[in-house]
């Protein structure tokens, strides 16, 4: 009874603090998202001034043509590859930041990791376009140094999309892993070493398991937006740059078919949620 009383009064005193955030979330996310759910079941937008009715046709369209499934699988593969590269690049960097560097040098390196966040995403992608194209910065620089002639034209290709996305998202991995790695007590590592574990064993048995929550959080933060990405594939991917996200964008921007675009978006959301739900027990056990 007493405990209940406290929790209730705790909630009422917390309400003024929570209200702004929840009102904002309701107005800015929940309402538009509900409207989109509503649109996805319609034959035409009520805004278009034409008669409309309810239909499941937009969802059926996904299954009626193989191209949507092909593109969804391509996007999921893209998400996995980008996440993997972010782990390979981001985790060692986070380890060095958390356990090796101290003081000034740590601050400086940290700043370099965060720096891309301060620039606009579009600017970053267009900078990559200048670097990757034939006769671009990378091509010119390598040919100036190397004794033989090579031709580097990565622009408008699948690797270009991967490079652009990894660059955009690797800071998430560094930050989340840094936080969990920093929280690992150094004496645990020392204890493992003094009990005869090799460096590799310490990494496998102590450091990676203890930092797993950071890895999982970083992977989820990267995987979800990358699967739906459309700007980077469109600009860097050239003729290979058609993905699930670009098809959704076409429905909204080019052909003004919001109902189909909304339905395709919710199918993506459902697939991503299923993947996260299936993966979470496995990842939890690992953690």
């Amino acid at each position: 009874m007493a405990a209940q009383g406290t929790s209730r009064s705790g909630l009422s005193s917390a309400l003024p603090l929570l209200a702004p955030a929840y009102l904002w979330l309701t107005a800015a996310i929940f309402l538009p998202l509900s409207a989109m759910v509503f649109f996805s079941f319609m034959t035409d937008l009520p805004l278009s001034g034409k008669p409309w009715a309810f239909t499941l046709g937009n969802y059926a369209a996904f299954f009626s043509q193989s191209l949507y499934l092909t593109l969804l699988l391509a996007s999921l593969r893209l998400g996995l590859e980008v996440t993997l590269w972010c782990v390979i690049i981001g985790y060692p960097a986070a380890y060095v930041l958390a356990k090796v560097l101290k003081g000034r040098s740590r601050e400086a390196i940290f700043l370099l990791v965060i720096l891309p966040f301060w620039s606009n995403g579009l600017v970053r992608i267009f900078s990559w376009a200048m670097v990757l194209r034939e006769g671009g910065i990378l091509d010119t620089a390598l040919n100036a140094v190397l004794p033989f002639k090579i031709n580097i034209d990565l622009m408008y290709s699948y690797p270009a999309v991967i490079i652009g996305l990894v660059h955009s998202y690797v800071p998430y991995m560094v930050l989340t892993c840094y936080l969990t790695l920093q929280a690992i007590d150094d004496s645990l590592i020392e204890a493992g070493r003094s009990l005869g574990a090799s460096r590799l064993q310490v990494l496998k048995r102590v450091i990676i398991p203890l930092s797993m929550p950071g890895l999982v959080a970083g992977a989820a933060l990267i995987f979800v937006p990358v699967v739906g990405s459309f700007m980077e594939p469109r600009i860097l991917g050239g003729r290979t740059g058609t993905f699930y996200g670009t098809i959704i964008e076409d429905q909204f921007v080019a052909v003004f078919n919001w109902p189909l675009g909304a339905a395709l978006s919710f199918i993506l959301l459902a697939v991503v949620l299923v993947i996260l739900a299936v993966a979470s027990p496995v990842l939890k056990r690992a953690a």
Partner: protein
Amino acid sequence: MRMPRLTAFLTATSVIASVLAASAGEVHVLNWKGYGADEPWAVEAFEKATGNKVINDFFNSEQEMLTKIRTNPGLYDVVMINAAFNDQAMAEKLIQPIDVSKLSNYANISPDKASSPMLDHDGKVYGVPWVWGLTALAINEKSFDKPPTSIAEMWNAAHKGRVVIRDDAVEAVQFGAIATGQNINDIKDMEAVKAKLTSLMPQIKTFWSSENDWNQMVASNQIDIGTYWSGSADRAKTHFKLPVSLVIPQEGAVAWLDAFSIPAGSKNVEGAEAFINYMIDPKFYVEWVTKVGAPVSANTKAVEALPEDAFNRKVMGDPEVAKRIQFQAPITDKQREAYLALWQQLKVDVK
């Protein structure tokens, strides 16, 4: 229960918006952004001459334009509609007949444009032809000793990986129709179009979507040839000094015609007529071409006011060219969806 209320709410807001927005002396114009009607110097000159105030609004696709005039009855006074969409707008009673006797410049509109069956219905004029242009080919002059004459150059293995095409289903399918010797408005053999475009895909470097994409790729010498708009090719050459020249292939090219209409329920028809008349005026046109670069005016006097060697007069006015081009006719929503499905499939197959 919720749906009628939602619709009622949407209608109410648009009615309130239109009541608040439109008052006499204001001309509300709906057009693509950066397409003549919103040039600051032009708006200023028109306002000074007539006392009407111009308020510009923009759309990003023809479907969006139709939606805007459907849901805001009475808000707009002038709307720019591609002639291929005029039919649909008239059938839905979104636009009203125009009294062309009030437009002093209308008499100079070239007769073939003025009598276009896409704009005239039952002897009434629903659209005043403004400008027209081509979707043809453009080349990077650095890659050619002499300009090609055939559309087949896009398939030439020498240009593999250095060809571009616009990311637009209708344009791509109509381009395929020309390449297979078909009428763009009556494509009989869709399989041939598909096969032709499929064989083009390995040649493609990327799909362009804006003028800026095209110009940047030429500036950095990444492409040889691609589909391009006539007005844009002219702008790239004269204003950006890029090595670009337009090629109107012997097989033909897709032509489009843009026209001004007055939406049904316009509150300032007089102002709308004055604005349209100003838009087809030679003085405005010459200034537009010189300062910014523009497509070809439908007003013959306006084209004659250009210098003799001007691209829009010399090349586009050539009777030989007129014989080769095919004007876009209206297409149904069903056709549009079929074109989009074909185009998306081609883009997925090439991955």
